[in-house]
């Protein structure tokens, strides 16, 4: 069953059936914003939502994660976590799925990261296609993430009174199979899906002033652009942009001791290239001084370095960095600034 249909009225029933496969995390309203949270009842979720404050990254690359257990005397080391638990991410937007695909590439790249791979193995992703823009901060079309492009177990597309399901993996197959209320897609359903997706595409447009190839060229030539000085002058160094990014994966490692001061864990925590001591060594040399250089580094880690290394853009177009910026630095404006500079030249 590659394509299936489920009536919206049956969604709570299906949701309940998923619970025995693992803990479910989904989007939930929190004041005027949205967050991924553990979900017990289908009704708790907000299925129409702008990207959550933090991406679901917190579940597969947690803010704090023990890497190693140790004791000092006698010297002993042990894996911190033996078994990870199965879990389901529910109603993940295509931009955030693209974020997971980026992390897959990074942590699979040799030497691979067993903690990430272990968690990823236990993760099931049920996506939810956006049928219109979440808000004006998103730039998903420019990077091609406004439409599903794999990386999920099941993708849900809203057809009004029902969801179309694209079952994309064995895991997804298991979750959809054998349910009387989930039926194979008919020709008529396929027609409805196609019409809905065609209608949707009319609403989305390239958010940048040039296609992605020209963006790539602008980054090739733009390292010494005055755009970075402008962004650097406005940046307050709060690190919000890197904290909410679904493809930021920099980290720190620190030892945390038990009360007996002999046993402890070595844990990694998120770290941000926007912090002023990020590249500073013990002798006091700071190898990336200045907010202009640090902001530029952030953008190059989305639009240039990973393209050269992995042939992949690490901007998913989710818009979180712009949404959260205290100085109102906009990703779309910054990229357009680089593009316009080229046109002017």
């Amino acid at each position, binding site marked *: 069953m590659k394509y299936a249909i489920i009536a919206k009225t049956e969604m709570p029933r299906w949701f309940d059936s998923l619970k025995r496969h693992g803990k479910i995390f989904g989007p939930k309203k929190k004041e005027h914003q949205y967050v991924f949270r553990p979900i017990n009842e289908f009704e708790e979720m907000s299925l129409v939502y702008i990207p959550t404050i933090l991406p679901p990254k917190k579940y597969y690359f947690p803010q704090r994660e023990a890497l190693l257990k140790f004791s000092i005397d006698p*010297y002993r080391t042990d894996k911190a976590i033996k078994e990870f638990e199965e879990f389901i991410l529910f109603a993940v937007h295509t931009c955030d799925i693209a974020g997971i695909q980026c992390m897959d590439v990074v*942590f699979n790249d040799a*030497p*691979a990261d067993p903690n990430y791979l272990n968690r990823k193995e236990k993760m099931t992703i049920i996506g939810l296609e956006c049928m219109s823009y979440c808000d004006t901060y998103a730039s998903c079309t420019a990077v091609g993430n406004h439409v599903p492009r794999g990386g999920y177990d099941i993708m849900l597309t809203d057809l009004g009174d029902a969801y179309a399901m694209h079952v994309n993996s064995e895991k997804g197959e298991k979750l959809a199979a054998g349910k009387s209320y989930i039926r194979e897609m008919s020709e008529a359903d396929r027609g409805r899906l196609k019409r809905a997706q065609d209608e949707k595409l009319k609403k989305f447009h390239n958010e940048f002033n040039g296609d992605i190839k020209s963006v790539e060229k602008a980054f090739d030539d733009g390292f010494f652009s005055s755009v970075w000085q402008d962004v650097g002058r406005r940046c307050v160094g709060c690190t919000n942009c890197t904290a909410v990014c679904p493809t930021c994966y920099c980290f720190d490692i620190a*030892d945390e001791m038990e009360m007996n001061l002999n046993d402890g864990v070595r844990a990694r925590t998120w770290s941000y290239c926007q912090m002023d001591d990020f*590249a500073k060594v013990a002798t006091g040399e700071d190898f990336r001084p200045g907010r202009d250089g640090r902001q530029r580094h952030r953008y190059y880690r989305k639009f*240039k370095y990973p393209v050269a290394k992995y042939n992949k853009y690490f901007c998913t177009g989710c818009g979180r960095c712009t949404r959260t910026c205290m100085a109102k630095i906009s990703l779309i404006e910054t990229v357009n600034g680089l593009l316009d500079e080229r046109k002017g030249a």
Partner: protein
Amino acid sequence: MKTEISYQELLKTSPYKPVKAKIVKTNKYTEFEKLFRIELDGKKDLEHVPGQFVQVSLFGVGEAPISICSSPTEKGFFELTVRRVGGLTNAMHKLETGSVLGIRGPFGKGFPLDAMRGNDLLIVAGGLGIVPLRSLIHYILDQRKDFGDVQILLGCKTPKDMLFGEEVEAWQKRADIKFNCTVDRADPDWKGNVGLITSLIPGASIEPKKTYAVVVGPPIMYKFVIVELLKKEIPGHQIVVSLERKMKCGLGKCGHCQIRGVYVCQSGPVFTYNDLQQMEGECHEGECHVKA
């Protein structure tokens, strides 16, 4: 440490898990610099290349990247010379023979030995730069006939900052290498050169086409030394440097050591001057893009 292991094996082990090791000898050269001879559990060889580094683990304190100062031709142990400047290195200085620590690595790319073999070498060490270069010098002296002319230029602040004193004396006496050193500031007993390391380069007699210059020192030193080497017409791909950065994970993941698109812990810390050209704008104190 590029070992091919299966996915299942990988999930059982962790690249973050250090190997147990023991300090078997120490030598305190100055108030700030101390040498540690270390044996891995089971006396296994580290199997490193001169120029690589390890992550030293002291549980409860953390980890720090330290370059290896012994040669892989010396079996059963390896050596680190550590300047105490931060949390880990200060804690390490308190350790003595018999103390236990953790080691991960070796990491990164070392000096390009295959390319260097058969050519002349001009080794330029400034300050603590002699530490990783000692690994290379030991390696060369153990396989002396594989290399052409070898000159060592050593610079440090004052005579009492000089590391590896007895070894340096032995290098001076050898007939099969040329050795020259200078101090920034002399003391009354000093009879040698006084001046910056750059002052020794113009007088060095070399055949630029067949010379590899290997330069390691503080960031500020590179731009001045590289200018002198370019004046000598040594080709960019034969000028080899080692860069200091904040290597944290050693696995090309954590991001702290990155220079533009390059993870220093994986692609470096050894680079050629030509490599540095690609890093323009993110090098420090003009390490790169020096115009002769």
